[in-house]
């Protein structure tokens, strides 16, 4: 049995267990953070050895292709940045910092598996492994808000899993296999006489997976959970967890419904319009920066779904590129928020007044990330939106691209509101805002990522095209 394709995941789980055990003996807690972040080099190196390998392993439960390898790297980077950004935050739950790091690592292992399996039972277990630690992490602060966040996340995750399992059961009942490729082969014949069952399966799967990507109308949990959870966990939820959801959605639908006579991309086109519009409009009235970023990430899910609406490899490539850009951008924005709220003790946008004078670099980094979320050069967000919208136009989805551009224009209002508060308003106190070294490193890495993805857009598009093509190879 060849275990090398899942060695990155195995080593990541090993690292998580090592951190929990070290927590018992180590007095200096900074060491744990160092072990967690430095230890990520092992799964990263093991993933490097998988580059260029393709095939299906472990009784077809594990898939190796450029798509899976790409996402393995991205999840590792996201986990590392979130761990670094947690350096100051863990003081609030000193008793559990080892477990905190370990749960982030375990969740990352689940996400990596989500991107590299195409077998229903493995998909479900990997999804739960990514989700359950997040529910715990959301409740770590143990106040009323955190309790609400954790409980809401756990209950809605359970509900969405039920929908997902029902949908999977129907697919299995129609085709007699749990392998997505086998389902893709069997569905056209089985579904030709059972259109009702196919439509039902599709609706249930979209409802179940829509929760993970917080697409409207399955987004109700997001703002409350984002607000109540520790901010590094919010960053992790809004970036890594959402990316894992999309990585799974893309593989699931392009493989299982490859040739089935049902217009699944249309569902995502509709959800895309709903998510973009609702996310942007509700973000208008937010006064809390975490809630604002929550609605902005719901809108982002809308943009990302434009890549699903064509159901082709060009759309998929746009989606993957957008995810990469969104990851650096949103992580950067959240890390800046972590650093700021750690010092000023508030998440209210009103308290960001005059921040440019109290912390020029921090304010600049946050502005840079907001500009990228908005999609103005020279940022990754610009390249991502341009590529995604251009791809949609090329696929004959001009109307969807137009709605996307209009929504981007609308979103300028609330992003600029934050920038205006930081640069044009008078600070309440002149006290400078300091930032600790690990958080500064994470912020610098994210901002550099935002810039580099813009500068090296062409070579990266080469990678995302290779990744998306590997999805469509039969």
């Amino acid at each position, binding site marked *: 049995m060849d275990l090398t394709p899942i060695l990155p995941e195995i080593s990541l789980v090993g690292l998580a267990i090592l951190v929990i055990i070290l927590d018992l003996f180590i007095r200096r807690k900074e060491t744990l953070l160092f072990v967690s972040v430095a230890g990520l080099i092992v799964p990263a190196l093991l993933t490097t050895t998988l580059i260029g390998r393709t095939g299906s392993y472990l009784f077809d439960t594990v898939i190796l292709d450029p798509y899976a390898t790409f996402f393995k790297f991205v999840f590792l980077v996201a986990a590392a940045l979130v761990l670094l950004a947690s350096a100051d935050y863990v003081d609030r739950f000193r008793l559990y910092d080892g477990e905190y790091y370990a749960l982030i690592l375990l969740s990352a292992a689940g996400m990596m598996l989500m991107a590299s399996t195409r077998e229903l039972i493995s998909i479900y277990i990997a999804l739960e492994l990514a989700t359950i630690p997040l529910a715990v992490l959301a409740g770590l602060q143990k106040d009323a808000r955190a309790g609400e966040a954790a409980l809401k996340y756990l209950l809605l995750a359970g509900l969405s899993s039920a929908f997902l399992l029902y949908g999977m059961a129907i697919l299995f*009942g129609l085709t007699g296999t749990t392998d997505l490729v086998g389902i893709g082969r069997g569905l056209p014949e*089985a579904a030709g006489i059972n259109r009702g069952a196919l439509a039902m399966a599709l609706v249930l799967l979209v409802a179940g997976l829509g929760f993970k990507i917080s697409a409207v109308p399955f987004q109700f949990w997001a703002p409350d959970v984002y607000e109540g959870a520790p901010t590094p966990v919010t960053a992790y939820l809004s970036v890594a967890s959402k990316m894992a959801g999309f990585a799974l959605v893309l593989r699931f639908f392009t493989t299982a419904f490859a040739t089935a006579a049902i217009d699944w991309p249309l569902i995502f086109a509709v959800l895309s319009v709903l998510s973009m519009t609702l996310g942007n409009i509700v973000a208008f009235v937010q006064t809390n920066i975490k809630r604002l970023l929550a609605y902005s990430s719901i809108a982002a899910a809308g943009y990302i779904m434009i890549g699903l609406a064509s159901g082709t490899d060009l759309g998929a490539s746009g989606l993957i590129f957008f995810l990469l850009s969104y990851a650096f951008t949103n992580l950067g924005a959240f890390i800046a928020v972590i650093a700021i709220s750690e010092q000023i003790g508030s998440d209210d946008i009103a308290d960001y007044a005059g921040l440019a004078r109290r912390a020029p670099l921090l304010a600049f980094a946050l502005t840079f990330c907001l500009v990228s979320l908005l999609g103005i050069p020279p940022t990754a967000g610009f390249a991502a939106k341009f590529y995604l919208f251009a791809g949609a136009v090329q696929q004959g989805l001009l109307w969807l691209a137009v709605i996307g551009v209009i929504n981007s224009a609308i979103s300028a209002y609330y992003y600029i509101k934050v920038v205006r508060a930081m640069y044009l308003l008078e600070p309440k106190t002149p006290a400078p805002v300091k930032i600790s070294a690990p958080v500064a490193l994470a912020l610098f890495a994210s901002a550099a990522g935002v810039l580099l993805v813009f500068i090296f857009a062409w070579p990266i598009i080469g990678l995302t095209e290779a990744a998306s093509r590997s999805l469509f190879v039969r």
Partner: protein
Amino acid sequence: MNTNEPAVTIAFYVFSALTLGGAAGVVFGRNMFHAALFLVASFFGLAGIYVLLQADFLAVVQVLIYAGAISILVVFAIMLTRQVERGNEWNQLRGPGLLLGVLLLLGLLFVLTGTQWYTGMGPYPADTVSTLARQIFGPWVLPFEVASVLLLAALVGAIIIAREE
């Protein structure tokens, strides 16, 4: 077992009524403790269905783990919870929830009855225990092992959530 025997048919309806009635009791019972007991009844009904499906080992596991261990855990959780006398609470979403539930039920009933399901899975294995073991440690070894990691994560999480500061 001949599935066409009247006794098997009767048993199926009895176990189904137990499963569904128990589940309804869990949702509609006002008293949390009664709801837990209804859950046990539902678990037993499901075990009966497994027997009728000739999944004997699964039925035993269902009784041991769900009707036994998990039910006791639920009862303990209720006993240790403050404010449990407030009972099974309702909120203003019960109307929309009921509507959505009924719509989903009708949709699923329509699909379940109107579909030609795949039936080519072959004969029942004579010895379910060894077949199950060979399947779990063969083709399904990845989800099986990942499930143990998931349990570890849940265990760690439960401890830090439940622990007093």
